[in-house]
């Protein structure tokens, strides 16, 4: 029987320390030991992308890396995407453009798209489809996911975006009043 190993890394900007067997996969550590259940287990065979997290500036399927490999790493999950109670442009885009139906793939979609937009801030539709190909959705047919990412890309580039979602309207009104 192998011994447990202490692993420390940064999770959504906070230092964490876990004791794991070397064979433990990151997705299980996140969900079962660190109560981060945003990354989902879809296939557990590195096909579906539902478990995608961002590690050291790269998108990663957390079912296909051992937690012991993450010593010293900087990991971002869907739980860390919104800042100070404000939704990230991608989260807003997925609401506005109906980028989800059942929502199971959404944390992985948003986390992957987060990295994509850092690398290519102005992607064409073809580029979005190519660089999002590691994430499967069984509801939407992808059309609205592409639109959601285009919405976020526009907003992150500082271009005007049209919001009609009731919750975002309210939020916008509140911040106007506060301002």
């Amino acid at each position, binding site marked *: *029987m*192998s011994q447990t*190993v202490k692993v420390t890394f940064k999770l959504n900007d906070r230092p964490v320390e876990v004791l794991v*067997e*070397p*064979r*433990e*996969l990151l997705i*299980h550590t996140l969900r079962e030991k660190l109560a981060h259940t945003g990354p989902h287990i879809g296939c*557990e*065979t*590195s*096909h579906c*992308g539902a478990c*995608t997290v961002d590690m050291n500036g*790269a*998108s*990663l*399927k957390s*079912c*296909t*890396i*051992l937690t*012991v*490999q993450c*010593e010293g790493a900087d990991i971002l999950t869907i739980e860390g995407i919104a800042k100070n109670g404000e939704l990230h442009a991608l989260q807003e885009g997925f609401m506005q453009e109906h980028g989800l139906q059942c929502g199971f793939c959404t944390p992985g979609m948003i986390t*992957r798209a987060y990295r*994509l937009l850092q690398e290519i801030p102005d992607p064409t539709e073809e580029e979005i489809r190519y*660089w*999002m*190909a*590691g994430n499967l959705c069984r509801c939407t047919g992808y059309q609205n996911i592409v639109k959601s990412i285009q919405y976020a890309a526009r907003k992150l580039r500082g271009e005007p975006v049209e919001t009609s979602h009731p919750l975002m309207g309210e939020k916008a009104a509140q911040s106007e009043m506060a301002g």
Partner: protein
Amino acid sequence: MIPKPFEYHSPQSLGDAVAMLQQYGDEAKLLAGGHSLLPMMKLRFAMPSHLIDLNRIPDLAGVSESGNEIRIGAMTTENQLIWSELLQRKLPLLVEAARLIADPQVRYRGTIGGDIAHGDPGNDHPALMLTLDASFVLAGANGERVVPASEFFLGTYYTAMNPDEIMTQIRIPVPPQGTGWCYAKLKRKTGDFAAAAAAVLLQMKGDTCTGVAIGLTNLGPTALRASDAEAALTGQPLTADAIEAAAQKVMAICEPAADLRGDETYKTAMAGEMFRKAIRTAMERCTR
């Protein structure tokens, strides 16, 4: 989907990693990007007692030029190959092929060295390495040796690497200026292995083929080099008849394993089709 227990090692130097390989022998496996090995361990097709992680060893990744040769660290990821400006200029075949491997997340982790050393004929780099006349630097207890790709792939999951060796670098001669290239890959979906794929490097003068290299992926127990087809084309005008005759020679050496991607007849036919597509594209890209 949890691997059998093992002991994890994270050597900080190549020397330490080689020493561990010597100590643990065939109980040990090397972990590079982990996107072939970990899935195999999860399915218990692989059950190493010792896992030696190469990711903490410095200087095993990167692309550089040395004389007329491109040198690629074995731990260079597919994503790094895609974005390398040097490769885009000097070895566009490799960039085109890397873009067709797996999916974005997997390409951030998967390494060229792991892809080659795994010895899987379904992986794409073995056929590319044969086509590009690459050679591999293998580090062991007695220092380094350099093995040409043509002598490396011995069978499915079986290579010329000794159990105590680690692949550290891939060396590829830069093809002559004006060389046309193409990697044509038929796959059912993103992330799948090729049902059939063909790599072509082509030099032409006018309409005549002055040099050609053809490699095939997932069409036999190892990646294949289609030498008969190359010999038939070299020195000939690239007419439709000449290409068709070469396609027949390509198909003649195929021995694909039947699986969910198709039976032997289908895959062999698709090998011919991928070759036709690759050579036509390579012709268009040739500077004559």
